């Protein structure tokens, strides 16, 4: 009687579907490689025997050598190592921001979708309002805010990493809408599902129903949306850097490396090329990855025949 019709779990099925998606697979591999390299930046630095924070005015724009596989930049620092450190920051910003946005979006969407009615109406009008905002101009206002006037402690405001936190906060504050809409839509459907009714009929509380019955069923779309948004956050960071509002030197990020280099585009095009291509490759990889995950985790494909 207990013959299970499928021999493998949902995860296995998704994994197999995903493996068929060659671009996504390649993207995942590329991203892992990039992340590993970025995390290992100090090791690479040590292995090459260079110190990327030390300026060497006598070795500016050096061509590629064994010590500097990608040459040096306008201040004689190793380009490769700086790119890796930049990757650290860009990937970190992308991932953290996307996660924070996903958390906010999930909470808003879950509450709106679960309670429906006026709560939903109010939250969704608010979400629509945020979506209607001209994003970039608003980011500029937000980026120019005086954090001390907002009431943050001076010690925090003056820390070197504040531009990093600022970017994460700002982008997450406006970036949650996609996930919120997604979660809300799915939650509206799920709350009518019989298994949710069943839980209601048992007298389960709202928190339990959201946590046990609704949220786990939203994981796939949230993962997909978050993956896709990592890419757009990295792009957005580079755009803000371009406007001088992104992550501030000396913290290197691909965005500010590229922005710095664009003035040197005539002198040392490679300096602009590398961060540009890294942003491009990373963003496109996250997009392919999201696309592949979407196909792999699609519940319609899940039920299968």
């Amino acid at each position, binding site marked *: *009687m207990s*013959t299970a*019709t499928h021999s493998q779990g949902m995860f296995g*099925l998704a994994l*197999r*579907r995903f493996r068929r998606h060659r671009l996504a697979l390649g993207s995942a591999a590329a991203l892992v490689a990039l992340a590993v390299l970025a995390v290992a930046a100090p090791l690479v630095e040590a292995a090459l025997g260079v110190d990327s924070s030390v300026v060497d005015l006598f070795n500016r724009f050096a061509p590629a050598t064994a010590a500097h596989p990608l040459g040096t930049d306008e201040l004689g620092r190793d380009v490769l190592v700086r790119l890796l450190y930049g990757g650290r920051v860009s990937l970190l910003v992308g991932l953290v921001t996307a996660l924070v946005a996903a958390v906010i979006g999930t909470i808003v969407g879950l509450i709106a979708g679960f309670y429906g009615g006026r709560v939903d109406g109010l939250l969704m009008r608010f979400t629509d309002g945020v979506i209607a905002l001209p994003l970039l101009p608003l980011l500029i206002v937000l980026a120019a805010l005086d954090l001390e006037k907002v009431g943050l402690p001076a010690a925090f405001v003056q820390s070197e990493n504040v531009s990093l936190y600022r970017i994460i906060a700002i982008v997450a504050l406006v970036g949650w809408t996609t996930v919120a809409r997604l979660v809300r839509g799915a939650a509206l459907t799920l709350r009518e599902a019989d298994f949710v009714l069943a839980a209601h009929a048992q007298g389960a509380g709202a928190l339990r129903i959201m946590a046990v019955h609704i949220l786990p069923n939203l994981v796939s779309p949230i993962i997909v949306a978050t993956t896709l948004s990592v890419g757009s956050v990295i792009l957005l960071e580079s755009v803000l850097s371009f406007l001088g509002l992104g992550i501030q030197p000396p913290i290197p990020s691909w965005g500010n490396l590229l922005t710095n280099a664009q003035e040197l585009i005539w002198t040392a095009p490679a300096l602009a090329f590398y961060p540009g291509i890294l942003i491009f490759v990373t963003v496109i990889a996250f997009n392919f990855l999201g696309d592949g995950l979407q196909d792999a985790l699609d519940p319609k494909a899940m039920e*299968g*025949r």
Partner: protein
Amino acid sequence: MEPAPESREAPSDAILEVRGLEVTFATDRGAVKAADGVSFDLKPGLTLGLVGESGCGKTVTALALLRLVPPPGRITGGRVLFGGDDLLALSERAMEDIRGKRISMVFQEPTTAFNPVLTIGDQIAEALVIHDGAGRAEAHAAAVGMLEKVGIPDPAERAGTYPHQMSGGMRQRAMIAMALICRPDILIADEPTTALDVTIQAQILDLMGEMQREFGVAILFISHDLAVISEMADEVMVMYAGRVVERAPADALLAHPLHPYTQGLIETLPRHGVGRGRLPAIPGTVPDLGALPDGCRFSDRCPLADDGCRAAEPPLTQAPGGRWVACYKAAP
């Protein structure tokens, strides 16, 4: 694989002859035959009932006749002879001329089978426009006439409404009107009343009978509901896991089913006179096409199965009274 039993059966009055039809789906777990050597005939003015449980290949068989099997499914064998042509060998362009004009179809879900953004009238008239090159006004008038025929009140007004503005029963009437507007030779009805309430179902079944009498159309009537089939069909074909297991004139099949599966199906139905208490049941579950038992695919649920059944698949063989059955143990 046994040869399709076509040699001994070629009645001249058949309008459509299906021989050894085979539809294969590429799945994650390899190729799976959703229809495996299906053969039957359709005769003008008569109804062939096709009954079976979910996943038995009923719908795929119907779609294969029109070559509308959705990917990843493909027709991988057999012939569909219609008016001297093998439909499976025609060009896509030629097939388009057959669809809706010579063979048309009524679907299960009247809600989703209509395009939500076009008016009912336009959708009914479309077949005329496609096949007869009818002008807009002319086609529209014909559509209104057809709506009236299928018993829709205020047909002229209704033609201008959108599907969502109609009730389910009305939509199914409109669907029948759409299928019949080009006066086809064959109507394939895939569970046409499953989504409807009983009182509406009765209306639609009556309508289909009326239309058959008026147009002399041959109907392939597909349903999982043996009761509906028994009221509609002249001949009944039972499918199990992609294969035809029994085919016979309706009265004979219902009165004396030969295949154990058919027997089970009839016995499990709650019926007047059976009384309350336990119902007879077919044990086990509907098989997964990817994991069929060896030999007869019903063998794992069959009370009569022996080693012979599990060794080789029984072919569909002729039995007395114009009947066919695929079982070694078929009750004579």
